[in-house]
């Protein structure tokens, strides 16, 4: 196995991890701060992609469309929070899971009603096409490199906001003690709505990044929703740091598994056995990883410090 291939796959894993992080960040933020399990997060990712497709078609310009699409997703997130999710904060996780599951069905069908069931096209502008030379004749798609860059920038920005700004402090304080913050005169409802909107925008950003390379169609959220949950469980719920670490771990393990598990198994098993076992094991790999992590550290790798 040549070194360049392994390095390239590592990079692929990081890129996949970064996409997962964008989704996981929003989800873990909402879970950690508002104690809300939101299965419909995948639907916000989907709506981000759809709204951006519509915005790009309407404005004719990629960047304008992306900005509009993200803004629209932010608004949509806040709307959903106000209309459907407010009453769920006090309820237990089961009710939250089921209510947001109902939202998934609704959003999928909404997308089908407005945009049809066929997959849509979100074209990349010319300046995002092409390749960059990374190491030893390895051409890496420019777009994916940009995705990594954007993801890392978002991670850095989130870390800064949460730890260094007043807003972040309010958010963390609200997580520890809601009523105290309200007593101090902070409008906690508005804060929560805003945080949810940010979470939605992050999911929407992931959708926007995914649009040109994945299929934009109803139900696209559910394809990666489970993996995102695995990420936040491994990383530890409520912590952005955990989401980042979990996302990278899951991204790299899943990618390396898909790439190298079959050849590796082929060295110890017969070719036919490796043929059968390799793909099956590769699909199960991240679940096994999660089971192992939970067995050793039942609260995830970096559980958030604000107790729930």
């Amino acid at each position, binding site marked *: 196995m040549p070194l360049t291939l392994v390095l390239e796959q590592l990079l692929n894993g990081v890129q*996949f991890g970064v996409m997962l992080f964008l989704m996981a960040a929003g989800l873990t933020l909402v879970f950690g701060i508002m104690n809300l399990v939101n299965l419909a997060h995948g639907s916000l990712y989907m709506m981000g992609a759809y709204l951006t497709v519509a915005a790009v078609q309407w404005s004719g310009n990629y960047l304008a469309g992306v900005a509009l699409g993200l803004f629209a997703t932010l608004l949509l997130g806040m709307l959903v929070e106000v209309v459907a999710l407010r009453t769920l904060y006090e309820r237990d996780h089961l009710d939250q899971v089921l209510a947001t599951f109902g939202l998934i069905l609704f959003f999928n069908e909404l997308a*089908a009603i407005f945009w*049809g069931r066929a*997959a849509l*096209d979100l*074209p990349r502008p010319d300046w995002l096409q092409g390749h960059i030379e990374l190491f030893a004749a390895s051409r890496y798609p420019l777009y994916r490199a940009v995705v990594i860059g954007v993801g890392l920038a978002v991670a850095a920005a989130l870390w800064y906001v949460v730890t260094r700004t007043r807003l972040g402090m309010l958010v963390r304080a609200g997580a520890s003690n809601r009523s105290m913050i309200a007593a101090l005169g902070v409008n906690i409802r508005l804060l929560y709505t805003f945080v949810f909107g940010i979470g939605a925008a992050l999911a929407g950003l992931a959708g926007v990044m995914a649009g040109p390379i*994945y299929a934009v*169609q109803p139900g696209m959220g559910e394809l990666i929703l489970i993996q995102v949950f695995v990420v936040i469980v491994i990383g530890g719920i409520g912590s952005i740091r955990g989401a980042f670490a979990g996302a990278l771990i899951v991204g790299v393990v899943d990618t390396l598994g*898909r790439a190298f598990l079959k050849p590796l198994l082929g060295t110890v098993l017969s070719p036919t056995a490796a043929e059968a076992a390799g*793909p099956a094991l590769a699909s199960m790999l991240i679940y096994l990883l999660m089971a192992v992590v939970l067995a050793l550290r039942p609260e995830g790798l970096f559980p958030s410090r604000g107790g729930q």
Partner: protein
Amino acid sequence: MDTGSGSLIDSPRDFLEENFMICRIILAAAITLAFAASPAMAQQKLKIGFITTLSGPGGIIGKHMRDSVEVALDQLNRKVGGLETEVIYGDDQFKPDVGLQVAEEMMKKNGVDIMSGIIWSNVMLAVQPAVNKAGLIMVGTNAGASPLAGTGCNELYFSTSWNNDQTPEAMGKFMQDAGVNDVYLMAPNYQAGKDMVAGFKRYYKGRIVDEVFTRVGQPDYQAELSQLRAKNPKNVFVFYPGGMGVAFMKQWSEGGFRGQFPLYSVFTVDETTIPALKHSVLGQYETKFWSPDLKVPASQKFVADFQKKNGYLPSFYGAQSYDGIMLIDSAVRAVKGNVKDSKGMVMAMRKANYNSIRGKFTFNVNHHPIQDFYLIKAVAGPAGKDPVMEIQKKVFENHKDSYYKDCKMKW
């Protein structure tokens, strides 16, 4: 009124509220049964059941099929075989048990005379036995599960599509004949994926660089594409239907693979996915028994009428469904409207005496068509429009599937 539970009952209102739930159950049951009882129907009306996937992923295929059935009905003036016809559509939600439930509902509640449709092999394998056991004819208009062409063939089951293996067999034959000797295979890791690869290998005897099976529903193929590039094959053959195909094709183009490696596929690029992929499919080869540009008069009429009515190009899913209705039409005509005469219907269907979109063909002993297969290529469409698939050459003439010898029927 003493209820023994200690609740306070001292008025008729409380009595009603107390027994509210019971009253509601009785009322609900009565309403449901009344609702369900349908008036007796005169036999002069023909009822065709059509099961497909209308919701969720795969719903786009169901739309193509339903729109095609409607075109067939329009052409026949809503009279299949001369009888006033009602087509009852059912949504299997891509689940075998729901498909079965829908079929049971159509047979027992709606009293359909004949059943048709079904996209997915697993749904078909659940539904067909029940339908045929009830004595109804089933015309499959897509699913090509191999048991139905072989040991599970049934007098009352007809297919207007193909057997799953035939389409990849055609690709394998083409590549074998073209002297290709180096192929990298990729497909999703489920039964259809394995069938496609098996069918391909039945006719392609050259070197296989690697066989890669990916997780069903996987959105990101970057890892597998890196592996492929490292292996540097001369040709690549893939099977990625639906959303998986859209994702794979986008990443194939965006990763710079298009133009670098010749790409051949089956059931990956077609009229249901081209609108999402646009020019990223140009230059790709597929094999199929039909393409919208096929120069068969019945097919050309179907395509023209379909485009006029629906504003988009029909896919093979639609062509097969249209064909199913036409097959049923020919049979009902032959028995002069006496649909209950199953033996007569079966004999008439076997003759395949109708204008099929694939041209004149005969049925094999297992009630699957013996038909031609073509190599098709994605080429630029009329100015400003999406690419279209264009027939390049015939690969198989009167091709039989590989399972008919296991079918015990003789006629």
